[in-house]
């Protein structure tokens, strides 16, 4: 990890609260004071993303104590996946982080493929890259819209959702569902890319930078927006690393670290893109990272489209009869195909014994998937390293000298998705 040596010092020494790094304890002199007001922000509150519950101790308008209570959205995804065959389990991860669903699906599929040692056709790799970047844009748009809404800039929400809708339209066209697509299968893609995808995606790619300009025009120079975001929710590079942060939170703290570049997966090695980094570690810098990443992702999508357009007619899924469902037309003609089909659907394909950890850069940071296989048709253990969960751990550190209004802005800037935190 490259921490720029000439970066400004955000604050002296560490601010991570001790002994519990995730709990901001009320200072000794205020404890038991009558002026303290303990307020529950959540689990139902207009601004807590999903069902995050924050128990906040207020001294006037100042936040002096903070504790996050999670678990309201626990659904037991990981345990559920152990009861399903590998093939069926693919439908689960995308529901964990419902905003960057495609990245979640990809990480599990990549883990299966790594265990199987499966080769993926080039077309599938590029299409996966393309969809994952679209997904990143989608996730960032939702973040920007809701974060701005929380600061009171209500119009931004609608502008962001206009572009978000075009991304979802693309997903609907290609994958058959607007979210939770199960389009990535072990070995490649579930279906070929429709012809109509390219013109529509091009339209989006041409439009998106203008839309980002519009967002920036709305808030970038706005005095109130600057006041509300600059110098707030400070997180130094050292603290960010100590707390295991990743993604926009880490890059907003001045650490130049992106898994897409540090350990390239998919087609990222052949792509030209910039990793935005900002040195000040405040809400503003996190916002800027998100904005820049949207632009970069648009560029990546454009590059992917260039490549994909030349790949018409190429296979979109590996030809491995033990893992991949045989082509539909063969079911009526080939007995062997039919048997493979039955085996894969009922019993599921077997994955060699072993354990594997695959990590990729989702919209929120390092999304990891640790899978253990006992050689059977079902995963023995699945564990996700959720970037939102880790980001939430930084809440207490960021909350030094914050007011109630800042609390909302800071929690918003960490970009947590509760589905992923609780899993």
């Amino acid at each position: 990890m490259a921490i720029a040596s000439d970066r400004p010092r955000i604050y002296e020494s560490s601010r991570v609260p001790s002994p519990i790094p995730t709990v901001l304890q009320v200072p000794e002199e205020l404890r038991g004071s009558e002026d303290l007001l303990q307020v529950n922000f959540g689990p139902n509150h207009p601004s807590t993303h999903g069902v995050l519950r924050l128990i906040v101790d207020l001294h006037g308008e100042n936040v002096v104590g903070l504790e996050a209570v999670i678990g309201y959205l626990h659904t037991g995804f990981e345990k559920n996946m152990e009861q399903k065959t590998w093939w069926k389990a693919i439908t689960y991860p995308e529901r964990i982080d419902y905003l960057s669903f495609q990245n979640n699906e990809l990480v599990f599929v990549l883990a299966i493929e790594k265990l199987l040692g499966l080769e993926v056709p080039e077309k599938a790799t590029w299409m996966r890259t393309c969809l994952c970047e679209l997904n990143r844009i989608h996730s960032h748009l939702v973040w920007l819209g809701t974060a701005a809404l929380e600061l009171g800039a209500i119009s931004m929400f609608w502008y962001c959702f206009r572009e978000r809708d075009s991304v979802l339209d693309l997903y609907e066209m290609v994958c058959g569902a607007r979210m939770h697509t199960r389009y990535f299968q072990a070995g490649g893609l579930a279906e070929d890319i429709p012809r109509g995808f390219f013109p529509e995606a091009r339209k989006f790619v041409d439009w998106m930078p203008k839309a980002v300009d519009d967002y920036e025009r709305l808030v970038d120079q706005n005095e109130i927006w600057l006041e509300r975001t600059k110098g707030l929710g400070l997180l130094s590079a050292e603290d960010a690393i100590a707390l295991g942060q990743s993604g926009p939170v880490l890059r907003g703290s001045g650490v130049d670290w992106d898994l897409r570049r540090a350990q390239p997966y998919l087609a990222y090695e052949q792509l030209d893109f910039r990793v935005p980094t900002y040195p000040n570690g405040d809400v503003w810098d996190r916002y800027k990272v998100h904005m820049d990443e949207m632009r970069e992702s648009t560029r990546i999508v454009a590059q992917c489209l260039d490549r994909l357009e030349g790949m018409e007619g190429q296979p979109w899924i590996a030809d491995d009869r033990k893992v991949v469902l045989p082509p539909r037309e063969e079911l009526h003609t080939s007995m062997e195909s039919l048997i493979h089909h039955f085996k894969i659907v009922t019993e599921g394909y077997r994955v060699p014994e072993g354990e594997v950890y695959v990590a990729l850069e989702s919209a929120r940071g390092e999304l990891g998937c640790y899978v253990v296989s006992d050689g059977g048709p079902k995963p023995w253990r699945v564990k996700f390293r959720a970037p939102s969960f880790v980001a939430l751990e930084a809440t207490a550190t960021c909350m030094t000298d914050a007011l109630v209004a800042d609390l909302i802005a800071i929690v918003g800037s960490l970009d947590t998705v509760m589905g992923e935190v609780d899993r």
Partner: protein
Amino acid sequence: MARGNPIDSVKGFGVTFKQIFKKPITQQYPEYKRPVYPRFRGRHRLHVHENGLEKCVGCSLCAAACPADCIRVVAAENTADNRVSAGERYARIYEINMSRCIFCGYCELACPFDAITLGNEYEISEYSRDDLIYTKDMLLAEPIKKVPVADRDLYDTPIPYYQEHS
């Protein structure tokens, strides 16, 4: 603390003002239904052969494929005087619990006889959970509500075999 230029602060007002003259993006839903793309996975349908026999042979492969376990199939033997499907057996009971279904489309991938497909209809809300358990008769019948579908040729190529022949 870096300050914004006061003139630039005003830019935002232009952004909001200019939208007044644009056409709203809201779709007036019940009156206007945006055509869904042909691949869109909506309400399930069971199909019959041209001669009136059901395609489903009650093999329960769809039930096995379902990640949400929302399909229930009970098979029975076809007899000479009660011939329902083209195969040896038929689905005596075929139920889909739509409140559990996650619309992943694995059932249509799994079905070797192209008997079940996911249609494009998305207006499947009901007032009661009981009404969301779709029986075989409901699945065999034409959907009551239809939705427009975008150009199949452009947005769904190549047409999968099973959709072409079902």
